[in-house]
């Protein structure tokens, strides 16, 4: 009942998400669970160079997308397919009832991997 539902990390990621937007590379989008997630990336030599997101959804999802994009840059393209959801949820203290939305983010990343 008490307590801020958002950690200060979630708050600052939500307020100023450095990776919001899109790239000139391929993009993937999923609309489900009441949210829309779009990811796009530019890759070189099987490495993700720029990753951007667009989200219509709650602050946790926006923060999660921001964390994901910033983590992905510099990683091999295949990282997109790794199951990062649980990790991000822990790191950002995402409430369990939002698991579905984080999975949409995961699925979108997987979809993007196939397009790269």
């Amino acid at each position, binding site marked *: 009942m008490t307590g801020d539902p*958002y950690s200060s990390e979630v*708050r600052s990621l*939500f*307020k100023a*998400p450095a990776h*919001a937007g899109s790239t000139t590379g391929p993009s993937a*989008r999923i609309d489900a669970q*009441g*949210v*829309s*997630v*779009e990811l796009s990336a530019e890759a070189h030599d099987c490495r993700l160079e720029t990753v951007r997101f*667009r*989200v*219509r*959804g*709650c*602050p946790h999802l*926006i923060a999660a997308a921001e964390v994901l994009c910033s983590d992905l840059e510099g990683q091999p393209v295949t990282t997109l397919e790794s199951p990062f959801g649980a990790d991000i949820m822990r790191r950002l203290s995402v409430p369990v009832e939002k698991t579905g939305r984080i999975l949409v983010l995961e699925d979108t990343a997987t979809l993007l991997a196939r397009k790269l």
Partner: protein
Amino acid sequence: MSESPIYLDYAATTPIDPGVAQALSEALCDETAIANPSSVHRAGRLSAARVATAAEQVASLLGCEPGQLIWTSGATEADNLAIAGAARYRADRGRHLVTMPTEHKAVTDMFQALEKEGFDVTWLAPGPDGLLDIDLLEQALTEKTQLVSIMHVNNETGVVQDIEAIGELCRSRDVLYHVDAAQSAGKLPIDLRRMPIDLLSLTAHKFYGPKGIGALYVADRPGCHVEPLLFGGGQQRSLRPGTLPVPLIIALGKAAEIARERQASDLEHATRLRAALWDGIKGVEGLLLNGHPTAHYPGIVNVSVGDVDGESLLLDLEPLCVATGSACNSKNQEPSYVLRSMGRSDDEAEGAIRVSFGRMSTIEDVEQAASIYVDAVSRLRQLAPAA
């Protein structure tokens, strides 16, 4: 989070008026307000006199007699007592009741409990502007109908129902009429001498009084009576027992007195703020006003945009303290049942924001609110994938 909050959630609860706070603080330690007013000794009689004065103040706000008021812990209890109390009292005559899905939960949840007890409830849907079509009510009334409960000002949208017309219809059919006036008492004119209302609920904390005290008006008419919900020491003619909270009652009386004096200027002030707020936000693309363009209490403005997430919008609106849906429902993230029953889509209802203000709010508050709202919608739209 460092900016100081701008409180625009008056429909959830208002700040206390300084005059009321002072009256309450003084009463706490005042010899004439310490004793139990049921006691026959001198201190008790002094307390009883203070309660009598407060009853006169509330009665004169409403245009009724002091003896027609029952003190309660707030509007939830007053609504429950009115509805269950009257329905059970008149159950022998018939078990049909009428209300609307846009009522406050203190009304709808009580009706649902009565449905489980075997009462038959007709739920009248509002128009898209939140107003009741009175013909629908006329059609709903049967020989069995004993009680109609339709609120004055809606807590989510500010829509004002025509309580006089509803009351006249009810009276002509010998049906009791209950009005949840939690959002209107002290803010809009109510005159129970003239208005055909049998039961009316109010709560102090919606008109600058303290939280935890309210009242139920019960008309002095044959057939108009409530059965108690609580049982105990016989206070208040056994209709609502428990030691009377004298200082809270004094504060409610004071809030009523101040409200009576300031009603016109408060309303003018709210009207001015509403205009400023609306001016600031009306340019937002796709903006929907949830409510009625004219039949409204000006201090509540509820708007939707269908294409942004409500939760993100609320966070982006900080430091504004505003509501999505009604205060009571804000913990569960379901779209407002009030807006849904007015025909809004899930997305529209979810993105709805209620801005509510009053006596202590300033033009700067609402101007800032407008600009923060405009910026937030625009930012979240940019953040989202194309439609």
